[in-house]
Every structure is written in structure tokens, then in C-alpha cells.
């Protein structure tokens, strides 16, 4: 069975724990956590990921900035990115999708949704 590297970028420990809890229930994932956009970028530069899940509102560097930077990296132009955020308005969703996110989950999240999205985007 192959392993997939998954990066979770989220400043809230509560949310991070919940996302990781959900992802751990999908077999074959190696989950790495980052506290904010800069931390996320650092991890991306040292390791290759197959899926990235990121919050939008974070200190230091927000999720939208992170998505646009990651998308400009040739190594990451096809890696699926999921935005997880409190912003439920449609224009926020459109903005995130326009800069290259593949999917969008609004808080409060359901673990089943995280599992479903991860399975679908990783094709497992």
C-alpha cells in the first residue's frame, strides 16, 4: 500500500486536532502539521506533499497567500489544495478557487467531509 504525504496548515490547535483526527482514519496517510503559512511553506520546501489542507485566517501568512505561492512552484502545480475556513460567503469560495484551490470546506467541519475530500482528491 502506498503512503501519501498530507500537510495540514492551521493556527488553531483545536481545529488542527480535529482535522488530523479525521485524516488519521484514512489508511495510508502520513500527516504533517504546520501552525501558519510560513511554517507550511517551510515544510513544503523540505518535503513533497500529495495533498495540502489549509486554513485561511492565520497570523504571519494567511492561507490564500500560501495557496498562490504554492501554485507558482512548478513541483506543486498539480498538487490538490483544500481550503478550510470560517468564511462561508460565496465570494470567499470563488476567490480561493480562482487562485488555485481544488476544494473548499467551511467550519464547523464534519469529519466525514474531510475524509471524503481527502479520499476523492488522492483517488484512494
Amino acid at each position, binding site marked *: 500500500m502506498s503512503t501519501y504525504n498530507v500537510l495540514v496548515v492551521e493556527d*488553531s490547535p483545536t481545529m488542527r486536532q480535529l482535522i488530523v483526527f479525521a485524516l488519521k*482514519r484514512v489508511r495510508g496517510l502520513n500527516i504533517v502539521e504546520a501552525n501558519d503559512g510560513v511554517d507550511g511553506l517551510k515544510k513544503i520546501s523540505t518535503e513533497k506533499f500529495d495533498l495540502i489542507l489549509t486554513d485561511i485566517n492565520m497570523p504571519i501568512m494567511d492561507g490564500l497567500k500560501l495557496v498562490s505561492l504554492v501554485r507558482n512552484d512548478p513541483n506543486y502545480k498539480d498538487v490538490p489544495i483544500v481550503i478550510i475556513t*470560517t468564511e462561508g460567503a460565496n465570494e470567499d469560495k470563488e476567490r480561493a478557487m480562482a487562485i488555485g484551490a481544488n476544494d473548499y470546506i467551511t467550519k*464547523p467541519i464534519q469529519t*466525514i467531509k474531510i475524509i471524503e475530500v481527502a479520499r476523492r482528491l488522492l483517488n484512494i
Partner: protein
Amino acid sequence: MTDHDKDQQNRAEEFLQVFKKGAEFTHDLLKENERLRYQNLEIEQQLQHLHASSAGAPSEELLKKIEKLEMEKKEILGRIKHVEAENIDFANRYVEIENENNMLANLYIASYQLHSTLDFKEVLQVILEIVINLIGAEEFSILLLDEKTNRLQAVASEGLENKEIPTFELGEGIIGRMAKTGENYFIDELEGYERDFHHPVVCIPLKIKEHVIGVIVIYKLLVQKEKFNDVDYELFTLLAGHAATAIFSSKLYTESERKLNTIQGFIDLMTK
């Protein structure tokens, strides 16, 4: 571990077992389904072949063979239907279990985070995080009861400033009454609600046994949050108790730390 915790753990383990068994079961079902479909296709082809080759007068033997194959086909189609029904049943059970799982995860994480620190400010921050992320609220406040003045005062807020929020006399208005009786308040009709500090959407008293130390009041939910579900009510119950004890013990701890520092200061002064 309390009986309740044990019970919770047993439930979680039970769900996990069901989930594992279910996953294997559905895998087998899918395989069986695929096999049957393939078999069905083969029979279909054989039938077509037979029909084609018997374009003239069909022999007795051929007719029998066709009949037999038709029977087999019928039986296989029946089995496929059955397997598909079982699959749907399994998918429904999976969703149900996953909802339970989601609830347990939320509760576990909320209580884990609440008791992860003894720092008063950090405890308040954790409560804010739980209400934003797990409940899905946008404007809300934590009010604590001042035992001397008998008034509730905002100590931490999200989407609002503490100083915007009035203080509330114990027993007065919705918030004061809930703090006095220890009962939860939920607004009847969310639609068309406009913020009124005296009429919140939700008011949850924070209680240690029957003793109320404060309240959580919610004035606005996230746009995508249209109603409360089971997990929210469970979270409110958990917050009522665990947030109260976390606040109380962190306050005690911070106070004793401060006293210790003062005493240490005196000792240093005298021994210098």
C-alpha cells in the same frame, strides 16, 4: 477514569470495530457485485450468440439451453439487486457511524483542549476557539460573575469588544436569569434576528455542580451555520461543565502563583 469516560471510550471502541468490519464487508460486497456483473455479461453474450446462430429453426436442445441461461440470468440479476441493497444499507450505517464519530471527536478534542493549560488567559482562548471552530459562532462573549457585585462582566469576546458588552445583574433579563437558574437559553427563531445584547441567540451558564461562575452568550452564528444539531447541544453541555472547571482552576492557580511570588519577594527582601 470515571464511569462516564469509560462508557465514552467503550462506545468509541465499539464504533471503531463496526467501522472496520463494515469496511471489509463492503469491500467483499463490491467484489461480489463486480463478479456477478461480469458473469451476467457473459451470459448475455452467450444468449446473443445463441439467438444469432439459431436464426433458422431453433433445435429443441438450443431452446432448452436458452431457457436455462435465461433462468441463470434472472437469478444473477436478483443477487445483484440484493448486493446493491446491502451496499446502500452499509453506506447509511457508515454515515450514521461517522456522525457519531464526529460527535465523539468534537467532544474529546474540546475537553482535551480545555484541560491542556492552567493559564487563565489561555483557558479563555481555548473556549473562544471551541465556540468559533466547533460550534461555528462569529460574535460571542464569555462573561464571568463578580461575586462581590453580583454582576456578569465580559472577560473575552470574539467579533466584539469586551467593553461594548454591558454588565448584567444576576437574575435580571435573559442573561441574568439563566445565570441565576443555571438553565440554557436558545432563541426560538433565528431568522431575522438582529443583535441585541440583552437578547442573545444562545446563553449557556458555566457551572461547577449547581454553582454558576459565568455564561457564554452568542450573538451571531457563521453565515453557513443555519441551525444547531446534536453535536452542538452536546458541546454546550460539555462547555457548561468543563469550561467552568477549567476557568475556576486556572484562576486559582494563577492567584496562588501570584501569592507565591509575593511571598518569595518578601523572603528575598528579608534575607538580602
